[in-house]
């Protein structure tokens, strides 16, 4: 029984009022989670490759606006609905009741979540460019809805986000209408056919407007300042959902427009003076810097949510890098990284919010030693950071390996070195996150802390299983990534269940995991069976330096974690981008006051006289010449 796109869209539209009705009660929230499951099943039934077309189509202003879900859109839609489902489940239980009492309006939260899902489905299933833009604007504004809920500093972050989002939206609108002027119609095939006939300068303008507009949401380099605070300070499920997938809508749109509509051949027509400096290389370097800088900024953060937010920005750089390679391996790595990042980012955010739920704080300098109290959260965060750092058993490794391999094959050694530096930054900051939260000395006030409630731990653990399984057998996901590549017109990657089997390089994660587990197995055997007797000691029973240490003595300081490293690289943190943004805003304020000066004329009719003279002279001179 093949599902229908209309039913899916209808389901998500009906979900909005349903969410408003059911959100306050616990049972209602679980029903909403069920609704997400149904949407997921409906989406699965739709099938990846057969491009289900929706019957609903309008003719607006002479353009026919319709919806069609191709493999690329299907891939992103699956991740979106799944992420929404997990976030909804995460907040359905005790987290919801506790925070509702603390003043958060659950009704608006669930409505916001559902509106976001609907907006993203409208974007992902766009059948032509007008529908694409409608989905794009709806997604930007829906994101604002979720960010405004938490109040306090979230409002300022949300306001900053929406100004960026409107700027991005306007750039996209400008690009859209220049394509309309060039191509005469906004249907995908008509645009794709007309692009080769467009002059290079017009093509430069169109591509730049589209890519810059879409990369505002992707938070690539020049526009990366808004994303970390905006996603970090929204409430837990919203932050998990936004962190996981919302920024990737930008990647979907760039893939759709830059690769599918404009195409690689046309993109390579755009170069500055000599061939090496073409647009794709520039984008690759922007992506790499987007990967490097945020990870090192993340290292400096003391708030766990901000640290993960900055990582979200960094990982975005990876995906864009993979996509811009536009060969079979690299783009597959980029698209797979979207899936992988969605999973482990959701786990990490959920784990951090579980810690906040129990201890009330996310400040890494005032946490520590929770491994005994919250073992399941520790396990989830451990698996999450292994995935984020890109270490073998987890799925993060597979997509990073594919991107690295593609970089080497494409002959880009400098890019490869830069990506390794960013991975270094990731590993360091991720370890700081794990250590300061779970390892080290337990704080007095956290002694009575219990494990997070089941309603929060189950989604985390399920996601951990997903991360592990797709780590071991990436072929499950690569199948749909290949279909998405075909939808984009790229060469699909040759994948097997364990990973990649292509002349360009083989990776079989099943063997890699087997060897790893064998290694751990030998270690475990040696440790447990053959080693001497080890005595379990209570976490607070410590002896150091010749005398017993009671719990209130601080003998293990975790704040200012990387003091030594920070001391060396502190001069690099000049915060030049934040300063640039601040300078832009203040000059803007000055210009605005100057514009007001124009209206502050002492005698009113001054401008009438000046205006008459200037305009008449200009018009007459114009007519004469």
């Amino acid at each position: 029984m093949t599902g229908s796109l209309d039913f899916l869209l209808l389901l998500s539209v009906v979900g909005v009022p349903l969410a408003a009705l059911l959100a306050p009660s616990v049972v209602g929230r679980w029903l909403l989670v069920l609704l997400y499951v149904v949407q997921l099943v409906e989406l699965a039934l739709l099938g990846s490759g057969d491009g289900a077309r929706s019957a609903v189509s309008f003719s607006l202003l002479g353009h026919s606006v319709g919806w069609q879900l191709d493999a690329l859109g299907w891939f992103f839609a699956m991740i979106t609905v799944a992420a929404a489902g997990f976030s909804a489940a995460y907040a359905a239980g005790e987290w919801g009741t506790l925070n509702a009492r603390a003043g958060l309006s659950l009704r608006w939260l669930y409505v916001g979540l559902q509106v976001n899902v609907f907006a993203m489905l409208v974007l992902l299933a766009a059948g032509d460019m007008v529908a694409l833009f409608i989905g794009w604007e709806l997604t930007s504004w829906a994101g604002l809805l979720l960010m405004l809920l938490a109040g306090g500093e979230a409002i300022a972050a949300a306001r900053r986000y929406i100004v960026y989002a409107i700027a991005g939206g306007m750039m996209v609108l400008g690009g859209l209408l220049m394509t309309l002027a060039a191509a005469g119609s906004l249907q995908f095939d008509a645009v794709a056919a007309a692009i080769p006939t467009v002059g290079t300068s017009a093509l430069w303008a169109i591509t730049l407007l589209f890519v810059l507009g879409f990369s505002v949401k992707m938070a690539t380099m020049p526009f990366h300042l808004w994303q970390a605070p905006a996603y970090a300070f929204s409430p837990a499920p919203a932050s998990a959902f936004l962190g996981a997938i919302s920024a990737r809508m930008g990647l979907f749109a760039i893939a759709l427009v830059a690769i599918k509509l404009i195409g690689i051949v046309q993109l390579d027509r755009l170069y500055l003076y000599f061939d090496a400096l073409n647009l794709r290389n520039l984008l690759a370097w922007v992506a790499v810097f987007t990967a490097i800088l945020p990870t090192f900024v993340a290292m400096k953060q003391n708030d766990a949510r901000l640290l993960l937010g900055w990582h979200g920005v960094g990982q975005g750089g990876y995906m864009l890098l993979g996509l811009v390679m536009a060969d079979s391996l690299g783009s597959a790595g980029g698209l797979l990284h979207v899936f992988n990042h969605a999973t482990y980012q959701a786990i990490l955010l959920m784990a951090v919010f579980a810690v906040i739920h129990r201890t009330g704080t996310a400040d890494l300098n005032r946490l520590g030693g929770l491994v005994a109290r919250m073992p399941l959260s520790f396990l989830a965060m451990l698996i999450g950071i292994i995935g984020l750092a890109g270490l073998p058993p987890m799925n993060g490794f597979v997509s990073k390996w594919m991107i690295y391999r593609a970089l080497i094959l494409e002959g880009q050694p400098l890019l490869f070195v830069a990506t390794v530096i960013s991975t270094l930054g990731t590993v360091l900051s991720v370890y700081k996150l794990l250590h300061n939260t779970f390892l080290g000395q337990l704080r007095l006030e956290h002694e009575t802390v219990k494990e997070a409630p089941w309603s929060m731990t189950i989604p985390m653990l399920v996601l951990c299983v997903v991360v592990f399984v797709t780590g071991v057998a990436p072929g499950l996901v690569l199948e749909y990534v290949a279909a998405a590549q075909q939808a984009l017109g790229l060469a699909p990657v040759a994948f097997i269940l364990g990973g990649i089997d292509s002349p360009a390089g083989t990776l079989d994660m099943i063997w890699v995991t087997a060897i790893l587990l064998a290694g751990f197995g030998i270690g475990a055997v040696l440790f447990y069976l053959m080693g001497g007797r080890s005595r379990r000691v209570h976490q607070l029973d410590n002896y150091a330096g010749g005398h017993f240490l009671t719990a209130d003595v601080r003998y293990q300081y975790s704040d200012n974690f990387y003091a030594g490293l920070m001391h060396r690289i502190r001069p690099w943190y000049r915060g030049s981008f934040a300063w640039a943004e601040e300078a832009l805003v203040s000059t803007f304020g000055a210009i605005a006051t100057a514009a007001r000066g124009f209206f502050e004329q002492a005698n009113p009719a001054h401008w009438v006289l000046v205006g008459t003279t200037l305009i008449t002279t200009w018009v007459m001179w114009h007519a004469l010449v």
Partner: protein
Amino acid sequence: MTTQIGLVFFIAAIGLCVIGIGGIVLSRNLFRMVLALAIAEAGANLLLVLAGYRWDAVAPILSAGQMPAPMVDPVPQAMVLTAIVIGVGVQALALTLVVRVKQRYGTLDMQLARERMNAEIDATADVTPPRSQERPRGERPLPAPAGGAHD
């Protein structure tokens, strides 16, 4: 010689307009602006009537049923008739406003009137004007000027 007189009348019309406009823009006294406005309007009306003038033509009045001689164009005269009365209507309204401004703000100087108007709009909207010299809002008082209060 004939186009000479045309030039004279054009000079008159343009002169009146320019003096009127100059009067409005340059003068600081509200009353004088109203006077200057009347002059500007007289200049514009004069130009309109000039548009209808014909050489050796007579006033557009039919005597004994038919045209005694070639007549001047009546349409601009009708227009100017309306424009003059509009001018006086606007002038009367302007003067009532001037009287009220003098009564409420006690001044006829455009500069002062504008400042008091902006102050009143800011006050009703309870917004501090952009470059206000009033005391800064914080609690800590400004440090006393160095060297004791000698000013």
